[in-house]
């Protein structure tokens, strides 16, 4: 059973991607295939997280080549919750793009590539092998490049080149680091690396972990190396930019968290002070960049960067509470950020522009959309009781506990500036009357409206649910953090031998006791 469940999150999107490509000429057929694939994936993801919660960590080794020699897929709480969130975003994006990309000539290929991208993201979350992680990064890079240049104009090609060059540098450095790591330790399995890395000389470890940090920092768009993100995102179609914003940078953060807990110990590697500075500056530059923009997609793109800062801050502080906060923040941010981009895309479709100067009157025309905007916007800014408040609360509390007062102050200031940007969008796009020279809003058919609004409303509901039912998600994040900081059960399960099933107790006490 487990062998099925662990492979399906990658298998289903790949199968859907090929099926969509084959139904290239029939738009409605490829939509149906795409929806079916996305729904099947959500069901599998739910089943997977349920199994992990009730039976503990799950491992499968491909081709029955046992770890550390073969490639293993490992589903622990963190991976399986990430897979679930990815599947939710997958459904939302597929529904939305059915309406948003309908007029594009490569409609079916868009769906095909969206699913292939989801396969890459799911694979990165599930793999327990660091070279396999690289392979899935490449899958993500290639498919995301494909999505960028499908039917592109000159500006889009320009953006895509910037995106690809910087991301290629990132994956090259990542590959270099893997090569050095393999040379130094002789293994690529993350669980096996944990013990072997600890025996390395300090200088070797610093070099290799520094390369990993650099490579993943580009992926996550951290402070000095984020320029590819604002340069490329705003040229993309709305559905695609929402997908990228929700998932791509977060995979980078996930890889950082995974590698700097299970493989390297962040404190031992000596990069903790650096990462604290990076986290603070990432937050600050992102939010200041957003303040100077007047285009919805550009504002939101810069806000991705500032929010990445909070997640890095959680990792940098490196206490159980801080990592809990970082994980909680990733879960919250994926939902909220995708939702804001979807709303921005809907406004653009209605008014034909996403420049705030040309927008207006959305509140009087569509009061319900204004309400749906307020939920993710306030959540992003951190209003209680919405999900963003809890994420910020956790990381800031952790920073106060470790007496990082400057970092805490930065985080609070950035929260304030986020409110400024969100109210700017609110005031310009929703509140002020429509400018006189602006074209009249497009009227959409009932069906199209439904396809646009359903994902937006569903994600808003999920945001509210996370806000009001913090306890179970907090516990999930806390147990994940405990598992990361005390990876012995993970290592035992991966290297333990048989590939059927291993149980690791879910309660934090059991893990701290290492009772496997």
């Amino acid at each position, binding site marked *: 059973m487990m062998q099925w469940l662990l*492979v399906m999150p990658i298998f289903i999107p790949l199968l859907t991607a090929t099926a969509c490509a084959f139904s290239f000429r029939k738009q409605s057929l490829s939509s149906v295939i795409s929806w079916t694939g996305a729904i099947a994936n959500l069901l599998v993801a739910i089943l997977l997280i349920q199994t992990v919660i009730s039976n503990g960590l799950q491992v499968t080794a*491909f081709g029955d080549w046992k770890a550390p020699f073969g490639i293993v897929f490992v589903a622990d709480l963190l991976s399986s919750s990430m897979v679930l969130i990815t599947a939710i975003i997958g459904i939302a994006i597929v529904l939305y793009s059915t309406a948003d990309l309908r007029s594009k000539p490569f409609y079916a290929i868009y769906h095909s590539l969206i699913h292939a991208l989801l396969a890459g993201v799911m694979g990165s979350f599930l793999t327990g092998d660091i070279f396999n992680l690289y392979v899935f990064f490449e899958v993500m890079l290639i498919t995301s490049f494909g999505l960028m240049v499908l039917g592109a104009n000159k500006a889009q090609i320009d953006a895509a080149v910037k995106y690809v060059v910087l991301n290629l540098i990132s994956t090259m450095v990542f590959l270099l680091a893997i090569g050095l790591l393999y040379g130094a330790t002789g293994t690529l399995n993350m669980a096996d690396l944990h013990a072997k890395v600890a025996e390395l000389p300090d200088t070797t470890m610093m070099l290799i972990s520094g390369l990993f940090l650099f490579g993943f920092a580009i992926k996550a768009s951290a402070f000095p190396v984020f320029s590819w993100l604002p340069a490329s995102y705003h040229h993309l179609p709305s559905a695609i930019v929402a997908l990228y914003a929700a998932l791509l940078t977060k995979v980078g953060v996930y890889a950082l968290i995974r590698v700097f807990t299970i493989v390297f110990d962040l404190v031992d590697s000596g990069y903790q002070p650096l990462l604290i500075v990076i986290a603070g500056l990432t937050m600050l530059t992102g939010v200041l960049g957003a303040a100077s923009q007047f285009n919805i997609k550009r504002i939101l793109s810069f806000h991705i960067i500032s929010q990445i800062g909070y997640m890095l801050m959680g990792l940098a502080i490196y206490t159980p509470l801080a990592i809990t906060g970082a994980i909680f923040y990733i879960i919250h941010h994926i939902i909220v950020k995708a939702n804001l981009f979807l709303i921005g895309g809907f406004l653009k479709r209605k008014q034909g522009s996403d420049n705030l100067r040309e927008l207006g009157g959305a509140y009087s025309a569509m009061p319900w959309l204004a309400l749906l905007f307020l939920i993710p916007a306030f959540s992003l800014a951190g209003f209680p009781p919405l999900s963003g408040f809890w994420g910020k609360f956790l990381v800031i509390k952790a920073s106060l506990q470790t007496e990082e007062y400057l970092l805490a102050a930065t985080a609070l200031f950035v929260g304030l500036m986020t409110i400024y940007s969100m109210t700017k969008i609110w005031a310009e796009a929703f509140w002020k009357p429509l400018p006189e020279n602006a074209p009249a809003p497009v009227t959409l058919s009932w069906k199209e409206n439904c396809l646009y609004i359903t994902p937006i409303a569903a994600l808003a509901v999920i945001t509210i649910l996370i806000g009001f039912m913090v306890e179970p998600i907090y516990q999930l994040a806390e147990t994940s953090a405990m598992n990361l900081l005390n990876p012995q059960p993970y290592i035992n399960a991966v290297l333990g031998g048989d*590939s059927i099933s291993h149980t690791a107790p879910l309660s934090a006490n059991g893990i701290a006791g290492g009772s496997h």
Partner: protein
Amino acid sequence: MSSIIFRTSAHIVTVLMLVFSVYLLLRGHNNPGGGFIAGLIAVIAFALLMLAETTDYVRQRLVYSPAAFAGSGILIALLAGLLPLFFGQPFLSGLWWGKIGSPLLFDIGIYLAVIGSVLMVLLNVEEELS
């Protein structure tokens, strides 16, 4: 490429290379070879034919579009990975019936995928340029 020697010999060499690529494909699971390089050699064969004749000539000889080759190749490879799951073994495990096994099926999938995707690029570039 108007040389009559090249145009005549290209047809013969193409056939020889295609036979050789199948040979490499079949021995791949336990000898040097395999679906990937076999596919590349098959692509070189078709590229030679493309230079000697025209892109349309190659497209006609392929019968199905390169995209169909690539897609069906990926499907076959996925299927070969899925097959052992029905026998209670992990994804991508090798199932053997005598000397023929699911790794061969996987290789055939890779073979078709490589031929399809590389030819798709080659033919499109050639058509753009001329």
